[in-house]
């Protein structure tokens, strides 16, 4: 095929570029991330941060989740920018509500947010309380047995 730089070619090129850009946008807004929310006493830099007695967490506009110590739950979100709101009552019986925005790395499938750390340092950068999470190896390699691939042309006939 001979390429001539006329108007039609240009229009086609632009169309292709637009579609590609659109595809990239879709990738950004459609990528699913799992955010684990964890309310557990943890030690950061030798400093122990106690779990919160009772805390309500809301990510974006999703349903609020309640946590007691050692609770862990997850929410599934798309896009990269999110807000998290945690509300709890501290030792002085004061209602505290913290709202933070956070950005997820694009290619991260799963991150974990430590709620006590976030409550203790509400203004710290997000890397303090949000880190990536990898499934423990026993969960990943649960099924080592070889799967037999069935390429049966007729299987679709009976079930549909």
């Amino acid at each position, binding site marked *: 095929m001979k390429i001539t730089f006329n108007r039609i070619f240009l229009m086609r090129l632009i169309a292709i570029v637009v*579609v590609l850009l*659109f*595809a990239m946008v*879709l*990738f950004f*807004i*459609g*990528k*699913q*991330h799992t955010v684990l929310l964890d309310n557990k006493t943890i030690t950061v830099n030798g400093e122990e941060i106690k779990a919160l007695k009772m805390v309500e967490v809301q990510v974006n506009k999703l349903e609020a989740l309640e946590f007691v110590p050692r609770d862990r739950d997850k929410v599934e979100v*798309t896009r990269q920018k999110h807000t998290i709101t945690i509300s709890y009552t501290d030792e002085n019986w004061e209602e505290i509500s913290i709202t933070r925005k956070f950005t997820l790395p694009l290619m991260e*499938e799963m991150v974990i947010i430590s709620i006590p750390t976030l409550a203790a340092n509400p203004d710290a950068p997000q890397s303090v309380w949000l880190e990536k999470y990898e499934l423990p190896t026993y969960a*990943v390699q649960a*099924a*080592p*047995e*070889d*799967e037999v*691939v*069935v*390429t*049966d*042309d007729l*299987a*679709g*006939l*009976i079930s*549909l």
Partner: protein
Amino acid sequence: MTLQRTNLQKVKRFLGNNTVTILFLVICAFGIPLSGYSANYLVSEVVVRIARNSFLIVSLLIPILAGMGLNFGMTLGAMAGQIGLVFISDWGIVGIPGIVLAMIISTPISVALGIWCGKILNMAKGREMVTSYIIGFFMNGIYQLVVLYGMGAIIPIRSNSLVLPRGYGIRNTVNLIGIRKSLDNLLMIRLFGIPIPLFTLVVIALLCIFILWFKKTKLGQDMRAVGQDMEVARAAGIKVEHTRIVSIVISTVFAGYGMIIYLQNIGTLNTYNSHMQIGMFSVAALLVGGATVSQAKIRNVFLGVILFHIMFIVSPMAGKNLIGQAQLGEYFRVFVSYGVITVSLVLYEIRKKHDRGIAGQILAQEQGVEA
């Protein structure tokens, strides 16, 4: 001798033209009471299947317009759609963006396969159907080569839940949980207790409008001309080969989108089976709706989906209630699917010959008048 048809002949002609549809009406009329399903259940099942399958079937219309018969090569589009779905599952793109992205990925693959398929069909004029049928089989081999040996080895796939334990190749089933029913549930309304996936139906309606509009465009008219007589069209300055390729490309691309819509409703992708029978079922449904190899309208699609799938839903249960074996009903519907295609093809060939005979008579009469 006059060529005016009497009323009896007209009735005969009508029955002859709609044999398959009438046959199906009879089967359904017997099957529905035998199965014992409630009307509500049947209607909701049929609605689901209209939303699931119509897009795929509509993709068959354009090649029929261009005189290339039933495009069994739509399997190629289905494969392209599945490859798109494998990628978005691997990347973890969910919801509507996932579906749209899968469609975007499938498009260049469909276009390339469509061009290739169209070129081959141009080399096999007069036997497009059997050739497109074999093309489907042939590409299934290539598809397996790519998906079973290429993916994970040459084409990077990151997700462990997709790749076989041996390290390359996609598993038998891919869970499409991320996009499952996301198109259907976008705008789900209930009418008399029957859930209706309105958004999917709107998408299908848009496609139908596109087809209707397309038939009126210059390209659509060209295709009709090519479909009626290739040599006349060529003499009129239409690029016959190019037009035929375009019709196959459009069909393949739509088949890819249709497959994605179909699979988002099903929710799991059977990597090595899902695409194989899709062509056959779509073709059978279209023919049940009263379409022929040379003529198909939008209404044939919907009538076909409804009748064909009623038969499909009721036959296992009817078989069980009648003979005591559900398997019998399953075999019965396979038989009916293939039988329908056979009968339609035979009737088409016979009618073609018959019409040629009438044309000959007319010609003879005219010459007789001149003489």
